[in-house]
């Protein structure tokens, strides 16, 4: 289904877009399988409608809300963001959504709510990858509340002018463009406001490889590969120069977000 959205966000990049066919057929969504082609292939049974999100923890307004009610009253915008995968490839994707801050504010987080935790849906009958203990299901992610409230952080419902397909995290996902892709959790069913740093799936699985913050940082290598550069998947096809680019601190969003981490050791807090 097509989605109307206000284009021309000041945050949008003018870089060449990744082809829509590539962005929707080359995905990491292990609940549908670990091969990049699996999510598009194995998600036909997934039903993103009806959808509700349970909000809990340190907030005045909690409970279970229909997706329509969560989105009601918010104008959809298009944001063209770079997406940098921790595997050292990247895409440029036109997302459609609303700033996460606008949604979170309506739940009136308490003063001691310092983090926001997110949980992905886990329906074994619709998501064949859940049969394999690749991660400790359901998938969990989290942000510090100032990161969650940052104007760049988007709650996305669509891409390329259409509703999100299952493989891209239908019907509701996070997009945090200055962090590695796995922070941008898909198919959200729970949002919890917490005082303590919430456990996150990849960090639990391998804390030395995946930190809580996971900010894109060319200076901090993954233990098994460098993060200094990335391969851009822009749809240009095969090129002898390999489409490799220098990776930028905070994925090129340093101007907007570096101040969130002032005084922090970004190697220790990777």
């Amino acid at each position, binding site marked *: 289904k097509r989605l109307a959205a206000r284009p021309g966000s000041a945050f949008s990049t003018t870089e060449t877009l990744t082809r829509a066919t590539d962005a929707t057929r*080359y995905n990491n969504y292990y609940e549908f399988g670990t091969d990049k082609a699996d999510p598009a292939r194995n998600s036909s049974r997934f039903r993103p409608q009806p959808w509700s999100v349970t909000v809990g923890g340190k907030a005045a307004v909690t409970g279970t809300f229909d997706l329509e009610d969560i989105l009601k009253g918010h104008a959809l915008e298009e944001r063209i963001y770079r997406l940098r995968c921790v595997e050292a490839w990247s895409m440029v994707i036109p997302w459609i959504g609303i700033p996460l801050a606008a949604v979170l504010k309506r739940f009136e987080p308490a003063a001691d709510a310092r983090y926001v935790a997110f949980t992905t849906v886990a329906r074994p009958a619709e998501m064949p990858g859940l049969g394999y203990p690749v991660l400790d299901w359901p998938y969990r992610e989290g942000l510090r509340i100032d990161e969650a409230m940052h104007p760049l952080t988007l709650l996305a419902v669509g891409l390329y002018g259409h509703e999100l397909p299952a493989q891209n995290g239908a019907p509701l996902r996070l997009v945090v463009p200055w962090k590695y892709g796995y922070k941008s959790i898909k198919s959200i069913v729970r949002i919890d406001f917490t005082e303590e740093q919430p456990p996150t799936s990849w960090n639990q699985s391998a804390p030395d490889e995946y930190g809580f913050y996971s900010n894109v940082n060319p200076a901090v*290598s993954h233990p098994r590969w460098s993060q200094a550069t990335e391969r851009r*998947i822009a749809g240009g096809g095969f090129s002898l120069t390999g489409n490799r680019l220098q990776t930028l601190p905070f994925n090129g969003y340093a101007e907007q977000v570096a101040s969130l981490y002032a005084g922090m050791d970004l190697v220790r807090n990777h």
Partner: protein
Amino acid sequence: MAHRIDRVAAGKPLVFAAALVPLGILAWRIHGNTLGPDPVAQLEHDTGLWALRFLLVTLAITPLRRLTGWSAALRFRRMLGLFAFFYASVHLAVYLVVDLGGFWSQVLTEIAKKPFVTVGFLAWLLMIPLAATSTRSMMRRLGGLWQRLHRLVYVSGALAALHFLWQVKYGKTIAAIEPVVYAGIFAMLMVARLPDWIRRSRQRRAAASGRVAPGRPLVQ
């Protein structure tokens, strides 16, 4: 005297041509731009996979001969081994030139500091002396040393299998079944050699302790 056709000699050009088919398919896919969303990664994956496949086929010759008694297979072994080295070299060249081309300082960092790359690089490095001494004249010149030198292929195979496994490991998880299957095949090919190795080491020990090894004349 009847002139007998040497079937192996006749079959060699066919095997040679067949071994070039994967390269041809890759060239075709580059030309037609059908390597998928991340063509460089696909090219790296496919060339690496063919290197490993040829290495495993090469390692399968000896157990195959034991099992079937088909000794002619031995005469294809050098060619298959050289194709393993060829595809491994293409794999490395794609990684260094096409993928990392221009980012030369990163090349050294990756090879020196990233264990999965180091292991793959070592697997290729160990194949160089094998390829260099694969000619008949080198075999003659090296004599018994040649046999021992070419046992490096077992190390190279183990490193290649490890390289593949390590590459798909995310966190604690091996996120693909393919590398596990290939590592399993490699392990089976090694296990198939165990009886021979055990027998030979027994013979050696027996010879060393001065007893007559079974089936062998006592060396005076």
